[in-house]
């Protein structure tokens, strides 16, 4: 029984590593934003747990409608298998960004712990910045 559970855990970890590196968090109410969403990622090269699947949140449709920009910082722990645990919003500029940020980090995955690594006790943090970049006339006219 325990053996089969370990095998399924291992296959889950492998499958997680094989998933595309970047993806958008699925959210039915924000589907319209996916098509024209621009994303960028500033990794921390010193961190020992490398991201495997990085999920970008969708831009909340109401925030886009009302032209609200801002950011949300989430802090979380990474377990042995690379899953995100105990995620919480540490700070935010507008509450509208809390849910998409949490949803995105909970769907993200990191590399499983290597045999020579020690599981860190501290929480790590990630900031999601939501911006609305003006389109130039040429871009808008394309």
């Amino acid at each position, binding site marked *: 029984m325990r053996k089969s559970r370990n095998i399924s855990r291992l296959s889950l970890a492998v499958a997680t590593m094989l998933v595309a590196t970047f993806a958008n968090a699925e959210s039915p109410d924000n589907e319209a934003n996916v098509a*024209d969403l621009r*994303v960028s990622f500033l990794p921390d090269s010193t961190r020992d747990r490398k991201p495997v699947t990085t999920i970008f949140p969708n831009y909340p449709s109401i925030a886009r409608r009302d032209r609200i920009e801002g950011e949300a910082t989430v802090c979380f722990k990474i377990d042995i298998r690379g899953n995100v645990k105990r995620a919480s919003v540490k700070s935010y500029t507008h509450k509208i960004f809390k849910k998409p940020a949490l949803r995105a980090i909970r769907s993200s995955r990191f590399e499983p712990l290597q045999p020579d690594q020690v599981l860190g006790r501290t929480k790590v943090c990630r900031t999601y*910045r939501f911006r609305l970049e003006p389109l130039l006339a040429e871009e808008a006219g394309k």
Partner: protein
Amino acid sequence: MGDPSATQGPKCRTSRRLAGRLLLLTILVGPMSAAEPQNNERMEAGNKVVLGVRNQPLKTGAELLLAGNYEEGVRMTHKGLAQALGSREEEAGLSNLCAGYLQLGKYDTALQYCDMLLVRNDKHWRGYNNRALIFIKTEQWDKAEADLIKGEEINAGAYTMKVARSLYMDAVHPVAPEIEIDDRKTKNRDEKE
């Protein structure tokens, strides 16, 4: 400036169409409620006591417009407007005709009814909202902006006003949503357990 809608993907266009429909729904709900008094309300017309809906064609017209049957909705609203009693019903009828003709793409006619409405009542925010939409459709941005400002002064929190403002902003000042993920450590940012 080029056509800003050209940059939007098919999903975005679909959402715009959806937004348009939602907008119309909300535009019509208010005026319709004006045409439909409370069930237990009693209205006296001469020596006859009438219970329930006073102007049935106006109500039916609004329902047809809400259902997307604009031709028939406009026809019934005209009928209701002809037998309207009081300024409230007249304003509801004019507002619905403006919205109906707007949906039919007859912007000149829609503008006439919106103008008539706003001459009667210059505090009718739905009138400003509808007229702003006509100006957005006909790309008269300055006039659209002026009407949006007037409408927002009267009812800034209205959902339809927000949607109309968003349509205007997307057309005049288009933006692209951008999300940046920052994993870099900042001083004292990473939390100790």
